[in-house]
């Protein structure tokens, strides 16, 4: 069995009467990237903050790097890299000063110049973090998360506010960390990001794990049935079928060239939305 860096069993978290998490179980093996997806308020951040040791759980069992985050000490933190969802107010220290200071805390830190190059901040190393644009500040956050050469990296919505190009650069940075063997827990609202980076996805909806699987398998084969869409008169019609070619042929035979014809294979985003919707209906029923 692969080395389990994270093992969560029947995790529960409540604040008085309010239940934030109800029976969440998941695991992350060494070298793996797990994407944690879910609507706002579903419990993603609560889960990740419990794993990081910022919050105490109400029930269940949690092991991160072999220890209980609630009772782990400074040595345990040396194995973690944490990029928080909101990095708070930016520092008046320069990028290099901040990275040097952090590097000094870890027993086997990365070379500061290498980290600067990896996140594309060499040009900005001498600038105060507070003077950088939002996207560059987020890169500095990521640099601070990886400078300690963590075995387990937490990335909580790392690319929020990035433009398309910056996001793609960020993905290639994450791929190079994956190639180095870094284990990653990622939360994101961008489904394509999860599809690009994750080995496995866990969807948390309504405080529970609603689905789990590889990006191309989660939700089951059923969820990936192609959709054929066309217009008939003023009505846009759509039909799900395993044989879209045959359906299109029959449409052509019946209507001639169909208007606004599309054959769509559901993206991860479509599958995800189906999962969340189904879960919500189930919860209501």
């Amino acid at each position, binding site marked *: 069995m692969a080395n*389990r860096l994270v093992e969560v069993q029947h995790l529960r978290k409540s604040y008085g009467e309010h239940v934030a998490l109800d029976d969440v179980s998941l695991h992350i093996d060494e070298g793996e990237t797990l994407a944690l997806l879910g609507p706002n308020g579903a419990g993603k951040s609560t889960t990740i903050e419990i794993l990081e040791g910022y919050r105490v759980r109400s029930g269940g069992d949690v092991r991160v790097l072999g220890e209980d985050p609630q009772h782990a000490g400074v040595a345990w933190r040396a194995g973690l890299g944490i990029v928080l969802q909101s990095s*708070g107010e930016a520092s008046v220290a320069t990028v290099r000063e901040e990275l040097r200071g952090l590097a000094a805390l870890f027993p086997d830190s990365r070379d500061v110049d290498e980290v600067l190059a990896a996140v594309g901040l060499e040009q900005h190393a001498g600038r105060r973090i507070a003077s950088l644009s939002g996207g560059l500040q987020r890169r500095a956050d990521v640099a601070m998360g990886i400078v300690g050469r963590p075995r387990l990296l937490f990335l909580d919505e790392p690319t929020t506010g990035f433009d398309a190009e910056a996001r793609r650069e960020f993905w290639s940075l994450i791929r190079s960390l994956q190639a180095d063997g870094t284990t990653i827990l990622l939360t994101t609202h961008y489904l394509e990001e999860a599809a690009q980076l994750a080995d496995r996805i866990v969807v948390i909806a309504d405080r529970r794990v609603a689905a789990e699987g590889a990006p191309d398998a989660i939700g089951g084969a059923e969820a990936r049935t192609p959709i054929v869409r066309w217009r008939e008169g003023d009505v846009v019609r759509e039909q799900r079928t395993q044989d879209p070619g045959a359906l299109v042929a029959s449409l052509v035979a019946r209507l001639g060239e169909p208007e606004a014809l599309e054959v769509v294979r559901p993206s991860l985003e479509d599958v995800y939305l189906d999962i969340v919707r189904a879960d919500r209906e189930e919860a209501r029923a």
Partner: protein
Amino acid sequence: MTGLGGGLPHPLSPAGIARTARIGVGRVAYEVRTYFRQLDQVLFTFLFPVLMLGIFASVFETMTFPDGRGGTTEIAAAEYYLPAMLASGILLSGVQNLGVDVAVARTNGTLKRLAGTPMPPVAFLIGKIGQAVVTGLAQAIVLLAVGVLVFGVALPTSAGSWATFGWVFALGTVTSALLGVALSRVPRSGRSATAVIIPIVLVVQFASGIFIQFSLLPEWMQQAAQALPVAWMALGMRAALLPESYAMLEVGESWNLAGVGIALGVWLVVGLIAVRLTFRWIRRS
């Protein structure tokens, strides 16, 4: 699965203490650098006593100071106010600077971020206290220089006077810094920090004879102020810088340096205990 985050010595082992000391010293340089990059700190903490010295020395230029027996002394306003402003600087560099700074760090995410790293809390506190000592010392040098060069104050030449200055400054500043860190828990948010801390600092200074000659204050106020450390810092500074004969202006007509040492020592211990009991990276929920 044990020792995954390893590579760090136990915090209380000799290697762990050496690590804390090394990180703490590095942190002092970081804290001093960032202090001088914040204009509001430089204006309201660093230069404020210098400004006040200028105002008092100019406004009261022609005033004579009572000797407490119905007569007057030869003492000049600048000469009288220089030790007071040195004491004020100790209070500002410690209590005001750190009271506000640590309260802001608690709400702007800085402490949360550090909580996720292997930063020893003691090293962080060494950095903050070191910042107060280094910036306070720079401030004292500026005050002395302005006193001598602008207002023609004659400084003492005996080694004994400077030794007194040294220990009162060091003990006063470290005590003041610890009390500042402890007081940082009082404001409910970083935004309210200045509104809470600055009035405390101001009132204590008035009651402690910083702005008004101590022997002119009502007796009950003198007694109340003597329960706090600031009056003792000011007394210690007067003992260091004023000619011996001016001791007759003091309570008991002596410098009472033993009292200064005892009062500041007690407050140092109070500060240490308060910081030990109240300082946390974050409140875990």
